[in-house]
């Protein structure tokens, strides 16, 4: 908006306020993302936020950016199309554990293969919170939910191990309580060339599958000497039964979708007019 000066105090929407429950982890993530945009000195008109359905889906409402709040599970392919035609935009995609890992889970592998240059933030609260307490792909086995009143009968996913095997070029996990870590990871992830996955444990206070206190006991930062280019070591920490490790699990420099498509242009070499193309069909 014209009234905003060149340095922005906030990228948050002036008119739309969050509707999350008091104490929700998502407030922390919202603040961290806002701070990251400030650090990176983005113009609000160059930011595009694409989100899915659920509590996390509301993220796109709360920024004064170009925002698309689409259908359940489809944020990632939607953002992929947007970034492909508009490499000049900073595209951030946000979803939850249900949106991202259940209904939309199939899309992650293919965004990873494309190495599309965008950041995907998954907020994991281990439950379907917005629809009031059904099992999600990360609800632990035997936990009682509304759709599994006698205990969940599916094993919880191990998302980090999954992302590692998908060859995602940037993978990090942190918690919504750690503002400093979120800020530094988001800053790095958004600047990373290619597909970056930021996995944030963001507890639900209403359907408290994983309460803050328990989460605090579980998490442990990756060791200082951990090498994020060592994928096998990353797998080891991802599969740890003892702790939920946080930090940057993996990063790799490889060509992005944009670069690969630019190569296509180079193969096509010369530009042609429509009439020149149609001549080829004579």
């Amino acid at each position, binding site marked *: 908006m014209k009234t905003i000066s060149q340095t922005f105090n906030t990228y948050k*929407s002036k008119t739309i306020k969050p509707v999350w429950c008091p104490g929700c982890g998502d407030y922390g993530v919202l603040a961290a993302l806002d701070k990251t945009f400030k650090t990176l000195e983005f113009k609000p008109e160059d930011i595009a936020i694409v989100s899915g359905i659920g509590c996390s889906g509301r993220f796109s409402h709360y920024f004064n950016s170009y*925002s698309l709040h689409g259908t359940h599970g489809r944020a990632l392919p939607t953002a*992929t199309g947007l970034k*492909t035609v*508009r490499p000049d935009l900073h595209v951030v995609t946000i979803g939850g554990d249900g949106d991202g890992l259940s209904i939309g889970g199939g899309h992650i592998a293919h965004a990873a293969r494309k190495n599309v240059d965008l950041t995907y933030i998954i907020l994991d609260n281990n439950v379907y919170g917005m629809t009031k307490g059904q099992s999600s792909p990360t609800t632990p086995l035997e936990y009682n939910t509304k759709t599994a009143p006698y205990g969940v009968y599916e094993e919880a996913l191990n998302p980090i191990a999954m992302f590692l095997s998908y060859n995602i070029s940037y993978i990090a996990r942190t918690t919504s309580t750690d503002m400093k870590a979120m800020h530094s990871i988001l800053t790095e992830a958004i600047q990373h060339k290619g597909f970056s996955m930021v996995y944030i444990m963001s507890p639900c206070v209403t359907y408290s599958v994983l309460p803050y206190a328990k989460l605090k006991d579980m998490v442990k930062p990756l060791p200082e000497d951990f090498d994020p280019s060592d994928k096998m070591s990353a797998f080891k920490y991802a599969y740890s039964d003892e702790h939920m490790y946080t930090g940057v699990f993996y990063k790799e420099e490889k060509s992005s979708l944009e670069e690969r498509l630019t190569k296509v242009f180079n193969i096509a070499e010369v530009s042609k007019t*429509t*009439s020149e193309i149609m001549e080829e069909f*004579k």
Partner: protein
Amino acid sequence: MGKIGTHKLKSKIDFIIRVAGEGGEGVMSCGELFAKAVARTSYHVFTFITYPTEMKGGYAMTQIRIKDITIYSMGSFVDCLVAFNQEAYDKSIPYLKEGGILIYDPEFTKIDESRKVIKYPIPFSKISVDTIGRPLGKNVVVLGILSHIYGLELPGLEKLIDDRYGSKGEKVVEGNIRALKEGSNAAAKMGVLTVMDLSKSEPANEDYMFISGNQAVALGAIAAGCKFSAGYPLTPATSIFETLSKFLPYVGGKTIQMEDEIAAISAIIGASFGGEKVITPTSGPGLQLMSEQMSLASMLELPIVIVDVQRGGPSTGLPTKTEQGDMKFAVYGSAGESPRIILAPTNVEDTFYQTIRAFNLAEKYQMPVILLTDQSIGYRKATVKMPDFSKIFQVDQYDRKKKVKIPQADQIELVQRQVPTEEELRDYKRYKNTKTGISPISRPGTPGGQYLATGLEHDEYGKTNQGPENHLAMSKKRFRKLDEVSKAFEKNPMETYGDPNVRIGIMGWGSTEGAIREARYLAEQAGVKIRHIHPHTISPLPERQISKFLHRLKHLILVEENLTGQFAHFIKAKFGVKPIEVHKCEGMPFTPDEIFNAIMKVARIADEDNITNI
């Protein structure tokens, strides 16, 4: 278009060749090379192919019609049949005209000797083995035989063989050229008559292309300024995405193959949000997967174009065969009420212009446009006049009153979505509830144009609002755009043909147009006059125009290629008429003859009615 009595009924040259065999035998390439060679003369060429779903085996055929004036359908019966094997012979022989030419390989085919046709038993498989050591060159041997019969010069065909097989190496090209010559020689030695001399015809007017319906979609999209396509392979639509993938980079566009159709439509929605013109091609099963996202595009008011090349259904059905089975789903397949536009092109050339029109409508009215073609158009190849590239105009993005004409060869207007003015950006309402329902879209990157596009019900700013008054107002806003479309469609010229004063009318949609038109000519020759209406816009329909057409009719014949009469349901519900329905649900398009027979039956009923009325 569609002026009464302007068509040329008489043509001097009009013949049809069918090459029938098994999938993997080269039936398609033989037919295509022949058709391509003829397309370089001044004659019009029209091909139709049908093949089995499997890579190899099963009945496959290609039918080529050659005429000195515009061709509307693949015709009913053939003048020349080439049968590669017994099954091909058995399935195709009923379609060979009396006195027609039958070419077959006696080693593989036993024929009915009593048929009154000219029989040429030529051992093309053996000729191929003798020439190149393998039977696989028999399709080129047949091409040589056909070139002898129809007087095509070998050097031209050799060039086409080189173009087609060049990538497989010199040896393959050289072998094929020898097989071609041997075929031609064998025909000459056996005393096969040359029935005409195509080589003596004028060379082609430079302004023609020889393209399939699927290629016409891709070229139409490029001409319309499309810059992005996301797709997922699905027969019979795949060649659209293939063609776009090859040519879009030349005009600065991009294509990406996605993991499924849901991802494909999601990607084009994202790209449309990014400000570009977008398309995704698919067939019925893919359209079903896309339906949730189609509703999202209606809700976000984003322009997207979807092409459904219909195939036989339901489920996997008949992937390589034709059917008009998706109309109801295209029109009604939505949870909640989401406005969309459905167009149905009638032939290859029309597909090119209707694709451009689809982009224009999508961009102007900010909603999904579904282009309903089918396998019979998609795989058909025809000679199409090159548009006049000096007559392509961009419509001003700020011109909100401009009435856009239907794109035609002599004038193509290209619509771009309306953008907000500086004034509007001061307090930007993305979903401003305007008189027409159309509200300008800002392109990401535009300062002050930031907005939220949400699939939740929202107010004029895009902010969520689930209030009763707001929902009614915004639903009306979205549908007001459809009313505008409707109004615009009514102002287009009537898509009717034939005598306006007669009492028998015929109605169809999409690819049946050519067969109906030819059936009407046949009926006229038999003394029965009818009129024909063939709307391109299935939804919304130009209702006043159709009412006017129906007004004085006593009998309405409604033709469509499905079992249950989907379009008929639509017409009956909207106009309260009781049509005589003619359906075909065999995976094959109507022949003019089949429709002609239906017309004649109705004409007899009409006669009897007249007698009883006295």
